């Protein structure tokens, strides 16, 4: 028989072990993020510190020739390419996603949700290599036959990405619409407004900041997607002159060249600088989401 006191102590010890284990887990999260930032930054900054490339040349230079006799490291084609495909993908996916979300919550709330919810989850579950594979064997030949150019290019990349970010935007938008107070809609209907009037004048304006959160989250995913884009975009290090011309993104050039360059060479360091840009953009996207959420609360 144990005394009451020792049982109490056992509780205390358990509690202590539990707490310190949790502290360890949380600490690990902090260690991971700090080491990620530290390692990627220390590699990525070496282009500017020891490599002698000026920040201006890297961000705004349009000539990418790291292997040339007088190498130049203008990463503008990649940075602009990333932004271009991301924005295009968001432009294509957002209206579709908002329609899907309205369908689930406003038009046919019952079976609409039952039908679309699994569809959205499945779309989110398809791996990105499979998207790339389909992009290369369906979208590229389709674009080649329908439009001028070789099919490969910015348009193909944006189309593949738009399908990939559909689920993200749709699920956030659907949540936002579902969270809207019922009486808001009812009072609009009571005033004799049609459903579309209610949607366009009441529902969408009030939920817009939340829907934008979804769009930004989708863009964050599109910005960082690597393999699917690399397979269909063509990878020429230039700012494209048309949507059907081969171009590059930050992720595609990293995937393409990381393994072929030796660690510590200025070529390799420039790729790390691009990884750093990707990382900073993640911070920017998260910051933007926070900003939108705060505005939404007010």
């Amino acid at each position, binding site marked *: 028989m144990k005394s009451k006191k020792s049982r109490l102590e056992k*509780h205390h010890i*358990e*509690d202590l072990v539990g*707490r310190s*284990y*949790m502290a*360890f*887990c*949380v600490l690990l999260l*902090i260690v*991971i*993020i700090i080491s*990620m930032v530290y*390692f*990627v930054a220390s*590699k990525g900054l070496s282009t500017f510190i020891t490599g002698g490339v000026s920040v201006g040349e890297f961000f705004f230079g349009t000539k990418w020739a790291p292997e040339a006799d007088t190498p130049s490291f203008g990463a503008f084609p990649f940075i602009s390419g990333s932004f271009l495909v991301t924005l295009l993908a968001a432009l294509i996916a957002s*209206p*579709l996603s908002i*329609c*899907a979300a*309205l*369908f689930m919550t406003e*038009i046919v709330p019952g079976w609409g949700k039952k039908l*679309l919810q699994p*569809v959205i*989850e*499945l*779309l989110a*579950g*398809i*791996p*990105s*290599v*499979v998207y790339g*594979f389909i992009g290369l064997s369906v979208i590229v030949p389709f674009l080649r036959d329908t439009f001028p150019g070789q099919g490969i290019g910015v348009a193909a990349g944006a189309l593949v990405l738009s*399908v990939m970010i*559909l689920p993200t935007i*749709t699920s956030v938008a659907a949540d936002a619409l579902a969270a809207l107070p019922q009486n808001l809609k009812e009072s609009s209907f009571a005033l004799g407004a*049609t*459903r*579309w*009037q209610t949607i366009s004048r009441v529902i969408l304006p009030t939920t817009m900041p939340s829907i934008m959160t979804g769009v930004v*989250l989708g863009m*964050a*995913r599109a910005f*960082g*997607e*690597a*393999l699917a884009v690399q*397979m269909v975009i063509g990878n020429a290090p230039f700012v494209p002159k048309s949507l059907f011309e081969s171009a590059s993104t930050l*992720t595609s050039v*990293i*995937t393409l060249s*990381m393994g072929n360059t030796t660690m510590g060479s200025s070529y390799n360091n420039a790729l*790390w600088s691009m*990884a750093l840009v*990707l*990382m900073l953009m*993640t911070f920017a996207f*998260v910051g933007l989401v926070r900003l939108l959420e705060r505005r939404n609360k007010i």
Partner: protein
Amino acid sequence: MKPRTVDKIATSLIVFFALFIVAILVGLLGYILFRGLSHISWDFLTSAPQKIRAGGGVGPQLFNSLFLLVLTLIITVPLGLGAGIFMAEYARPGKLTGFIRLIVEVLSSFPSIVVGLFGLLLIVNYFDLGFSMISGALALTVFNLPLMVRITEQAFRSVPKQQKEAGFALGLSKWKIVTTVLFPVALPTIITGTILSAGRVFGEAAALMFTAGMSSPRLDFTNWNPLSPSSPLNPFRPAETLAVHIWKVNSEGLAPDAVEIAAGASAVLVITVLLFNLGARFFGRFIYRKLTASKRMN
């Protein structure tokens, strides 16, 4: 135009776009399965890939994907539980909690290629673990961990307040309440979330190319001694997963039936992810029913 006509047009447009998304999914799945299913056989699922001859399978890759998933979950689940419970039950609102929440958000939105590069730098090169299963699992941990934290936190928060208060009324310590009262109630949600996140791990390729490697040494499936380099259980061997294999076959494949293998492997990958999704739904419902039923009986 009359508002009623506008309403009709707008509604039909929304319905059209929603059904268009369903059509995209049906088209995607149909295409993948149509192209791939004819190639899937027991032999394809179990035999080793061939380098230059036709008729290779994806046996080792399928095993690697599953084993890598198990390894990743072994690492992430306990860590995610710890940090998640802390966030749900212990953390007081304040700067530190806000900071940890921000970290979780940032970690989960990092592009997988950045995680892969970080893994290459720190785990593969600096820790000298080489291209190996364990390197891959640690890299996957980086982006699976924030998901686990979020899943755990939400699961614990959704437990009714009364249960916790009843525990306190009985004079239990907080840790005891967490482990014996809250944890069992939160478990179904956690399991469902874990299975869904597992789907993402299963399809990941960009991060693994730089960490788990793109080669699959000959495996001896009769050798279950984890010390042996040819044993499938050895976590320190390089391991090509199914998703990476699709990428490699698609780009470097010398076998005459490379296209069919990529299609078959894509189908296997998608079917597995489908199974994960269905499994998560089924399991969640099953556990929920069991838990609620047993409570009524007591």
